[in-house]
C-alpha cells in the first residue's frame, strides 16, 4: 500500500508531533497542519453515537494559533507536564495525495509535585496530505475513551 520511505515519513510526523506537544513547544503545533485543517478532540461517546459536539473543534490553522495564544496568555490553569505514548500507525489508505491512518495514544499528566496519572487515552484518526513541505495533517481527530475528563484539558493532545 505504501513504500517504506513514505511510511518512515509518517512515523517521523507522528514522532515530531508528540515531541512538540510534550515539550511545550506550542508554536510548532499548528505547523504540523495544512492551512485549511481540522483538529478535533471528541469523546468516544459522541463519535459513536453520531453527535457532532467535540470538546475542542478547530477548523483552520488560525484557530490552532488562537489556542496557542490562549494556552500562553488567557487560559488560567495549573501547569502540568504531559507525555504522549503513541502506537505504530495503522495505514488504512494511501494515494498520491493523501494517507489515511490511525494510531492509539495514551497521554500521562504530571502536575508539579504530584504523582503521574493517566490523563487521556484514545485513538487518532488522521488524514495526512503530501505537500511540498512534507507530510502535514489535513485533519486529526482524537477520539478519547477517557470520557470523564480529570477536571480540564488545556494543552493539545
Amino acid at each position, binding site marked *: 500500500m505504501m513504500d517504506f520511505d513514505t511510511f518512515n515519513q509518517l512515523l517521523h510526523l507522528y514522532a515530531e508531533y508528540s515531541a512538540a506537544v510534550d515539550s511545550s513547544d506550542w508554536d510548532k503545533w499548528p505547523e504540523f497542519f495544512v492551512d485549511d485543517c481540522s483538529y478535533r*478532540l471528541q*469523546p468516544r*461517546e*459522541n463519535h459513536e*453515537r453520531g*453527535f*457532532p*459536539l*467535540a*470538546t*475542542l*473543534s*478547530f*477548523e*483552520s*490553522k*488560525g*484557530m490552532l*494559533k*488562537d*489556542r496557542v*495564544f*490562549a494556552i500562553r*496568555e*488567557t*487560559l*488560567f*490553569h*495549573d501547569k502540568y507536564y504531559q507525555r504522549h505514548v503513541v502506537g505504530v500507525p495503522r495505514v488504512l489508505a494511501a494515494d498520491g495525495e493523501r494517507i489515511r491512518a490511525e494510531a492509539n495514544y495514551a497521554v500521562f499528566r504530571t502536575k508539579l509535585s504530584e504523582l503521574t496519572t493517566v490523563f487521556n487515552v484514545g485513538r487518532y484518526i488522521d488524514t495526512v496530505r503530501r505537500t511540498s513541505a512534507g507530510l502535514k495533517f489535513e485533519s486529526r481527530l482524537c477520539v478519547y475513551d477517557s*470520557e*470523564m*475528563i*480529570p*477536571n*480540564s*484539558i*488545556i494543552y493539545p493532545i
Partner: protein
Amino acid sequence: MSDVHAAPPLTWELDGTSRVPFGAYTRDDLYRLELERFFYKGHWCYVGLEAEVPAPGDFKRTAVGERSVILTRALDGSLNVVENVCAHRGVSFCRERHGNVKDFTCPYHQWSYDLKGNLQGVPFRRGVKQDGRVCGGMPSDFKLEENGLTRLKVAARNGVVFASFDQDVASFEDYVGAKILGYFDRVFDGRRLTILGYNRQRIPGNWKLMQENIKDPYHPGLLHTWFNTFGLWRADNRAELKMDEHGRHAAMISTRGHAKKATEVTAGVASFKQGMQLHDPRFLDVVHEPWWGEPTAVMTTLFPSLIIQQQVNSVSTRHIQPKGPDAFDFVWTHFGFEDDTEEMTRRRLRQSNLFGPAGFVSADDGEVIELSQEGFRQKPFYRTIAELGGRDRSDSDHMVTETLIRGMYGYWRRVMEAQP
C-alpha cells in the same frame, strides 16, 4: 460503643452569609445532610432532556445526587424515572448509559421490570416441580406489585425533565418560582430540542462551588480574558441579577457591550488584552436570535443540580452530580433547536469551543474550583469573604456584587440548620 456526638455547628462570622466557613465545603457529615435535604427531599433534580429519550423504550442512565437512576420513555409514551437498584439483591443492574429496551432484567436472578419500574416476573416464583412435588418458590404472600423499583416523581416542562425521590415535593413551577421560571421558559419555550453531544468532567471541588461560580458575576471579567476582551461579559455590561424568593435559584442576565476599548473596568486587570485579535474570528461569529430579547447571555442556576447556559449562540445544560464533599461530576449537554439552520448548528458548535472542560472560557473555572478546595482543606477553621456589593441578599441591577452567593447561603442555612 461510644455515643454519636452531634457535629459541631458551623460558626458564621457576623451571623450573616457573607463569610462562608470552609467547613461547609469539606465536612462529610454536612455533605451527607445536604444529600438528604437538598438532593433527596423537597427539591427537583435535573435528569435530562426529552430529546434524549424520544421513542418508546428509550432510556438514559443518570444520577440524582449520588444515586443512580434511569430516565425512561415507557411504551405508552410516558416519562418515568426509576432507581437503578434491583428490588431483590440491590444490584445496580443497568450498565448501559443509554439504549432502547422492552424491559429491564437484572443479570443476577433475572428479575425483570417494565419501563415504569413495575416488577413483571421472578424466576421460580411458584417453585420448581421435581419428583411430583413443588420445591421452593416465593412465599404465597409475595406480591409483584409490592416489589418494584423505587419510582421517582417526574416533572417535565418544555422538554426538560426533573425528578424527585420526594413524592410530596411542590410542583416544579412552584419550586422554581415565577421570576426564574421566566428565564427557564426563555430558553425552553416548547420548541423541540436537538442533542449536539456531551462533555463530562470530574472537578475535584465541592459541588456548591459550581453553583457559586454561576452566581458570581465578579470573576468572569477578571478570570476569563476572552469575556472581558470581547465584551461578552464585563463589569460595565448592562446586567441584572435575580433570585427566587428563597434565594436558592438565580439568573445572571447580561447584555454584551459594543466597545472593546479599555476603561476603568479593564485598566489594571491583568487578563484584559487590548491588542488581542483572533486569527480566526469565527469563534465569535455571534448572530442575535429573536428569542433572546435584549440580553445576550443569561446564566440560570436551579438549585441544587442544574445550570442552564445561554451565552450568545451556545446553549447547554450542565448537570451537577456530587461525589463526596470534595468532588462532583459535571455533565454538559449541548443542544440546538429543531428550526436551526445548518449554519446555526455550525455556529453553536463553533462557539461551544468557549465552554466545557477544555473551553477557552470554562476550563479555568474547574481549575480555580480545584484550587479553592485545596485551600479549604488546609485551613478548615477559616472562611470565605463574599462581601462585594455589601452583605445583604437582594436582587441587583449591576454585576459588581456577590449578592447571589449570599442569597444561596441564606437558603442553605435555613434548610441545614432546621431541626429535623
